[in-house]
């Protein structure tokens, strides 16, 4: 329970901060600081038990089928990292309160920071590697938001994007690696995986797992050659840098490798990849840091270098080295966060971070200078600070590492790394605080307020304390965490400043001495280094990104042509090929079911249909003519339904036919009438061939189906229960409103959405380019000067009540006789449409009380409410109920809830049909009026 609270607390704080962005800054800081402090306090109450060997855990099934559980635990390693995250998080919140200008949106900033904190805590506490991946991705995303917080600055945006591309790309590799790891170990639970290290290392998947996981860890921890995003991420506000790049984000990769150390470490491949990458990164980062002038750039490259050192230690694969790595994680977090804050103070007070414009600040900013010097000394590895201890352990381990055993190269390079680290640390402190007085943008800078001094002071004191009182402050947690990393193989640490005269001490002394020497002679070296032209990683990255984007554009340009014909041709061709394949596999012979003889009338109407279809094809470019033929086809289809015992279908078809033709006529009014032919002869022949094959296939399929016996279907059930259960004798209607009412509900919703989409398409059609074209539109056809012929107007007005009566009649009888909501709605629509046609748009629109939107909305609501009503009576959704009543004069009649449902259906259909037609005619009307107005 405590673990859940620990993980959720930062997310809750992020949510509160995000929604309450308008609250005053005090409140924001109180929420973020309070959440961090509460989390830290909670963690500390758990700490004694964890250090004593307890492993609190919580596991909630999430997607058990995938092996993904919301599974958290707390072991000493997680405790160490969570402590760093929450502790430094608290200090960073306090620091940010002083650092951010009053105009900054602190709510937004702290919300992102808390989101990031929650993700990091989640990584530290995850006991399931899939869950860890989720949090891992969340850190990439939230760090993107933090780095790019000053979104009006181009460098911030680019830095954020680069960090996301690199760490996100590594995250993808990590996902693959973790999935393979889970497969090799047979579980995604960390406890199981840690116990099966031998199995994983023996698995043939091991090299792939290792490389993929390392890609994830190296990108996150900015290891060479993926280091380049970190310096660019310095565009972030300094509190973010202090948080992300000292203790948390970049340590996530280290944490991951420490976490999986018992599983993945111990092989030659591990040692080669991790130790060498770490070593190269350490030396490279330190060398670059030495020649930078921007404070934060120095700190960024020094972070790269220090992380390289931790990586190298993990890579050695020995328990002692792992312990040294853990100790350095602690030390680095303390002094690097302090240094970032000191750099922030200097930047904040002097307006610059350029070392060349700064100097002698010790007199002006004594407190900042003290803290900065202390932290820099820890980074240099000077006794009696914590950095000295871990550096000595590192040098000691480099002498004993199995990698390149006995060779002098490894200790020499490790010493070189330490030497360069000492040199840039000295340079930082000396150039900033001593020597000639240079104060950047302002004349007399001074120490900032308490909020910006307290956090670095706490951290610098910690850096000092880890050296002076190591056995009290660092040993318990480091021993326990190292034990967790190595599954109990770690030696019992004896941390002390003085271990007697030994080779490591000698190397340490060489590093410090030569480091000081190097600083003294730095100008010479700098001129030499300036002549070496290092490749600019950002330019390479940008070029690579550009090349990828170009390649993808070209590829999608090849696949995605703005030609509907190509897509449809591919679609039809695939269907034809699949159909032929299916026919070859399972046979498509005709059956022996007796056929029905065709009457002469049937043959004649068939001839009409065939002729009309051919005529449509031939007359396709003479559009009004094509419409006439289309309507012939619709008519014949309706007649076929009449003949073949489907009265409901016939009624629906004929009504839909009418509205479809009116719709197409209205659309044609605005579309070009008889356009030129576009397709070439070969293309037409090809399309005729495709059409012919498809037609023959479909026809034969229909023939084969109809000449075989029907399989037993659910129809018999519908038939048997229609009257008994549904209270109606029209089985088709009962099926629609009762048996399959859920389908119908879905269908009217789709219809409603289509209506709304039509509205959305036509509503803005008179604006912008479309509006201009509409205004330029000219009547291209002569028509009668009499817009609304009297006879037509009078006849349709007389017809209206009759038509509405017919609609109501069809609706009411639908349950037992052919009819129902669909057909009634279409009849209604046609009745109203006739008014539009005869009396004009304006006349009719004025007299209409209910708009299409409410019709659609109420229809869906009525239908859904009817269905939900059934739940009140304990029946399943959309069950209908009915009863028979007697009224004087009218006699026996039936009422069914299904009729209410049908009413909803009818409302939606009327709404959608009217939406399409009325909106279209409205647009046409506007265009025509324009045309008239200009013609007159």
């Amino acid at each position: 329970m405590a673990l859940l609270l620990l993980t959720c607390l930062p997310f809750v704080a992020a949510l509160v901060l995000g929604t309450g962005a308008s609250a005053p800054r005090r409140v924001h800081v109180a929420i973020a600081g309070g959440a961090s402090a509460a989390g830290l306090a909670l963690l500390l109450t758990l700490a004694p038990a964890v250090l004593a060997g307890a492993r609190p855990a919580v596991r909630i099934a999430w997607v058990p089928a995938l092996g993904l559980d919301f599974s958290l635990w707390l072991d000493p390693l997680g405790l160490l990292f969570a402590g760093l995250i929450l502790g430094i998080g608290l200090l960073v919140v306090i620091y940010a309160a002083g650092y951010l200008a009053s105009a900054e949106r602190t709510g937004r900033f702290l919300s992102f920071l808390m989101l990031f904190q929650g993700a990091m805590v989640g990584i530290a506490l995850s006991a399931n590697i899939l869950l860890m991946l989720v949090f891992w991705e969340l850190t990439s995303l939230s760090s993107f938001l933090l780095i790019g917080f000053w979104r009006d600055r181009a460098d911030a945006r680019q830095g954020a994007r680069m960090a996301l591309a690199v760490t996100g790309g590594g995250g993808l590799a990590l996902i693959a690696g973790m999935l393979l790891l889970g497969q090799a170990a047979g579980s995604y639970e960390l406890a199981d995986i840690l116990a099966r290290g031998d199995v994983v290392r023996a698995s043939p998947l091991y090299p792939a797992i290792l490389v993929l996981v390392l890609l994830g860890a190296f990108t996150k921890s900015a290891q060479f050659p993926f280091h380049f995003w970190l310096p660019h991420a310095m565009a972030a506000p300094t509190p973010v840098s202090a948080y992300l790049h000292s203790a948390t984000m970049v340590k996530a990769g280290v944490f991951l490798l420490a976490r999986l150390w018992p599983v993945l470490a111990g092989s030659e491949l591990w040692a080669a990849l991790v130790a060498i990458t770490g070593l190269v990164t350490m030396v490279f980062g330190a060398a670059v840091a030495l020649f930078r002038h921007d404070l934060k750039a120095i700190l960024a490259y020094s972070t790269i270098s220090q992380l390289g050192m931790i990586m190298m230690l993990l890579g050695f694969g020995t328990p002692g080295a792992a312990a040294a790595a853990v100790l350095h994680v602690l030390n680095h977090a303390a002094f690097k966060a302090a240094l970032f804050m000191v750099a922030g103070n200097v930047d904040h007070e002097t307006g610059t971070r350029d070392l060349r414009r700064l100097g002698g600040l010790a007199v002006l900013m004594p407190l900042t200078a003290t803290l900065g010097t202390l932290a820099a000394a820890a980074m240099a590895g000077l006794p009696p600070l914590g950095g000295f201890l871990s550096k000595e352990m590192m040098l000691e381990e480099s002498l004993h590492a199995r990698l390149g055993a006995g060779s002098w190269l490894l200790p020499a390079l490790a010493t070189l790394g330490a030497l360069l680290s000492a040199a840039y640390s000295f340079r930082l402190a000396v150039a900033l605080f001593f020597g000639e007085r240079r104060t950047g943008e302002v004349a007399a800078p001074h120490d900032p307020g308490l909020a910006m001094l307290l956090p670095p002071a706490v951290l610098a004191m910690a850096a000092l304390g880890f050296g002076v009182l190591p056995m009290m402050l660092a040993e318990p947690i480091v021993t326990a965490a190292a034990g967790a990393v190595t599954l109990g193989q770690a030696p019992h640490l004896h941390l002390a400043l003085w271990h007697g005269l030994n080779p490591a001490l000698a190397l340490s002394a060489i590093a410090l001495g030569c480091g000081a020497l190097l600083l003294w002679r730095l100008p010479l070296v700098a001129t030499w280094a300036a002549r070496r032209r290092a490749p600019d990683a950002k330019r390479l990255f940008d070029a690579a990104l550009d090349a990828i984007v170009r390649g993808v554009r070209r590829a999608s340009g090849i696949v995605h042509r703005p030609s509907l014909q190509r897509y449809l041709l591919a679609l039809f061709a695939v269907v034809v090929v699949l159909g032929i394949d299916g026919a070859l596999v399972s046979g498509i012979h005709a059956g022996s079911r007796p056929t029905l003889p065709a009457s002469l009338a049937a043959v004649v109407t068939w001839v009409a249909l065939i002729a009309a279809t051919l005529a449509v094809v031939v007359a396709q470019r003479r559009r009004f003519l094509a419409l006439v033929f289309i309507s012939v086809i619709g008519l014949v289809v309706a007649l076929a339904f009449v003949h073949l015992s489907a009265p409901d279908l016939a009624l629906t078809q004929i009504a839909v036919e009418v509205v479809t033709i009116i719709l197409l006529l209205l659309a044609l009014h605005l579309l070009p009438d008889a356009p030129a032919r576009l397709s070439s002869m070969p293309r037409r022949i090809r399309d005729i061939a495709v059409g012919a094959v498809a037609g023959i296939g479909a026809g034969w399929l229909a023939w084969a189906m109809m000449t075989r016996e029907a399989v037993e279907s659910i129809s018999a059930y519908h038939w048997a229960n229609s009257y008994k259960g549904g209270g109606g004798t029209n089985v088709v209607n009962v099926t629609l409103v009762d048996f399959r009412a859920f389908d119908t509900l879905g269908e009217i919703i789709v219809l409603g959405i289509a209506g709304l989409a039509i509205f959305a398409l036509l509503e803005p059609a008179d604006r912008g380019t479309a509006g201009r074209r509409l205004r330029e539109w000219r009547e291209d056809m002569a028509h009668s000067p009499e817009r609304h012929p009297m006879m037509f107007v009078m006849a349709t007005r007389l017809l209206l009540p009759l038509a509405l009566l017919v609609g109501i009649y069809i609706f009411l009888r639908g349950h037992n006789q052919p009819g129902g909501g669909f057909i009634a709605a279409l009849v209604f629509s046609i009745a109203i449409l006739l008014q539009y046609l005869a009396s004009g748009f304006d006349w009719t629109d004025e007299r209409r009380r209910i708009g299409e939107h409410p019709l659609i909305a109420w229809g869906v609501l009525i239908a859904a409410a009817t269905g939900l009503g059934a739940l009140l009576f304990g029946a399943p959704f959309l069950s209908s109920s009915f009863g028979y009543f007697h009224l004087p004069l009218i006699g026996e009649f039936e009422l069914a809830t299904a009729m209410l449902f049908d009413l909803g259906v009818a409302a939606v259909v009327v709404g959608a049909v009217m939406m399409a037609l009325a909106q279209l005619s409205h647009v046409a009307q506007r265009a025509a009026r324009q045309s008239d107005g200009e013609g007159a």
Partner: protein
Amino acid sequence: MSLEFLIASAIGVLVAGGVYLALRARTFQVVLGLTLLSYAINLFLFASGRLIVDRPPLYAKDVADYADPLPQALVLTAIVITFGMTALTVILSLRSFLESGTDQVDGDAALDEDRIL
């Protein structure tokens, strides 16, 4: 000639015409093609209940022989949805004509426009 043959051949001809028209280069022909295809598909679905004359699916106690009500119910909604689809396609093509000044869907007109820009 049997009724089954008439229906099957009608479906075939409608599909052939529909496919050919759907492959034309202008929106209106495509709409016509889709309309023809819809007729064919609705007829096919309906025919899956097999053909029967003068036996509408209206329940009465002593009726044993009746048209299959299930495909009819499916086709009834299909006809209405077909209208919705046709309407949306027509409006879509109208709007795109108004926006782009062309009713072509073969991509060539769009390319011309690009070149002008």
